[in-house]
């Protein structure tokens, strides 16, 4: 459901919009009606080992901490799998060989990730370039999840308001 019930009630009591318009809007978010919270997701691209490794790396990038849950709780590996399965062959190849570099490394994943991340500003190696892809995917998946939007950012928009947001701080004027 796309609108909080209390928001709906607030709007409905204001009488601004036909109730059926809002209620039907709330159920038309995807053509399948399934959405992407990945409750019972079947992995289509990652092998079990890749899935575990990707999850470990993603959780290192956006970890659970005292503020909010991390990438694993937000099911970012499933998001990545879905995007890659629907994406380009080139992207799939880059991920397969990127993850393989971690698997074959003599260093721990933590050490390899640190090494890869050191090139973030201007990646020169395949590993450095993969880090950029891995992080972008993690960011894109995490911050579009319910956990990323609500628990982490505490975003409170996408609401029906009765007045436009306005600055009332004298120091900003």
């Amino acid at each position, binding site marked *: 459901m796309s609108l909080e019930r209390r928001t709906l009630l607030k709007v409905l009591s204001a009488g601004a919009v036909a109730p059926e318009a809002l209620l039907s809007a709330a159920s038309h978010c*995807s053509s399948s009606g399934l959405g*992407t919270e990945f409750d019972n997701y079947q992995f289509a691209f990652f092998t079990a080992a890749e899935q575990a490794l990707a999850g470990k790396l993603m959780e290192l990038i956006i970890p659970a901490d005292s503020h*909010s849950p991390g990438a694993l709780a937000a099911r970012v590996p499933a998001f990545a799998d879905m995007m890659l399965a629907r994406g380009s062959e080139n992207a799939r190849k880059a991920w397969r060989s990127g993850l393989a570099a971690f698997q074959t490394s003599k260093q721990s994943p933590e050490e390899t990730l640190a090494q890869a991340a050191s090139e973030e500003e201007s990646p020169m190696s395949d590993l450095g370039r993969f880090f950029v892809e891995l992080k972008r995917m993690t*960011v894109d998946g995490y911050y579009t999840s319910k956990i990323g*939007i609500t628990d982490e950012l505490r975003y409170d*928009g996408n609401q029906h*308001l009765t007045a436009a947001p306005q600055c009332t701080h004298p120091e900003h004027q």
Partner: protein
Amino acid sequence: MPVQNYDVCVIGSGAAGGIVTKELCEGGAKVILLEAGAEVKPSQFRSHCWPYELENRGYRSEKQDLFYPGDVRSSIRYEQSDSVSVDRIRVLGGRTVHWNAVVLRYSPTDFRERSLNGIEADWPFSYEEIAPYYDRIEKMIGVCGNDDGIDTLPAGKNYLPPLPLRCSEQILRRDIKGMGAKVISVRKALLTRDYDNRPACHYCGHCMDGCDVSAIYSTPGSMLPKARRTGNLTLRQNALAREILLDKAGLARGVSIVDRQTGKEEEIRVKIVVVCCASIESARLLLNSKIANSSGVVGRYLHGHSTGQMFLYLKELQGKATGNQDGALDQCLIPRWDTKSYKGTYDFQVNYSGFMFPFQARAVRGYGSAFKQRVREMEPGFLMMGGYCKVTAHPDNRVTVDPNTKDANGIPIPVVHFRFHDMDKEIYASMRASALEMTTQLKADVTALPPATLSGFASHENGTIRMGTDPKTSVLNGYCQSHDVKNLFVTDGSTFPTSSEKNPTLTIMAQSLRAADYIKEKRKRREL
């Protein structure tokens, strides 16, 4: 082939077609409105969907996919072109269901580039001639804003209450004063109070994804109910115009259409044809019809806007609890302020992206809890802007058709040929310099600046069927009427002889209203 008879055929239901249809229906004409797309009902809009309710998390243009059915995105080619893209939305209401609704009047000087600056061409009408139509249109569609007393941005008389500035916009106004730039409440076809049987905006921040309550002006939400009430409207959806057909006297006798669902062809017989398909599709239709082109100008003089975006995070707001700031998206505007030379022909639209996705997360370096915290802290400081720059009109920048490559309906596809000229690059460079100067005035972390090379057109393409007083160098007269085919009109942005830095829609609507008045008058006198 089945044949149907009407007085007027309006092709395209966007900003231009909506106004013409409503006006002519009210004027007593039997109007058939053709739309190549179909209605997407407000209940189908994905505006209020959370990303995790969508199949692709909102990526891959998922929220707007419904507006681009079939092969419309792919059945076009760019040949030897700079980095530009054009919009060919295919939905009932056209771009009025997928727009930010910024409606700015052109200024008196914008209509006189040739006379004042020796470049391009003058428009066949002046600001004074179009001003009464601006007045009427603003009243018809509902526009919020202020009269800010700015010469480059003439104001109307009938504005709804203005949108207020938010924290980041107040800070912007305070800090860039020294540059001479003003930050004003935007003028938008958005209702800040109930108006014309439409409810006020609910400030959800999703203007571009379709407004479910029509607080933003759209053809289906505002004009079609009025046109339907007259009993004179026939709406044909999924009807793709293949050709405009002429009779032996050289007048338009009708339109041949392909029904996109059945694939069947039909002919619509009419007395008057009004083309409102926007710059690319209108030119394509005229070129495929091989009509109205004694000047050789059809398809030529494609122009519009170049744009470049910047993202900043104001230090003053970082880490602060600012609450929900999405509002009506771009609640403010920085109008053109440098009038010393053509290089100042740009403005800035502000905050037209909402706060839901933290773009800084793609720019902040590092990883781990510290990264996460930094992204979170920066978020309330979000301020983004796009510079919109005039692109000049040149004959070699054009749309052609490729008779050997056809779309899914067997109609030759359009081909875009476009190169930026030196003047375009100079205007863009001035905009970029102003953007850089702003970053020195604002205390902010900057994550993106307008790129060094320009791109276009941000859905604001104009030209290809230009108006003018001389039939040798223009396709239409000042009433949007073909010089060659007297009962053929084109009233969308393709008519524009020149672009300014302003968004084109309000001027498209005003000239559509003016053309509709002219058609009504000519019909009354039985001259059309």
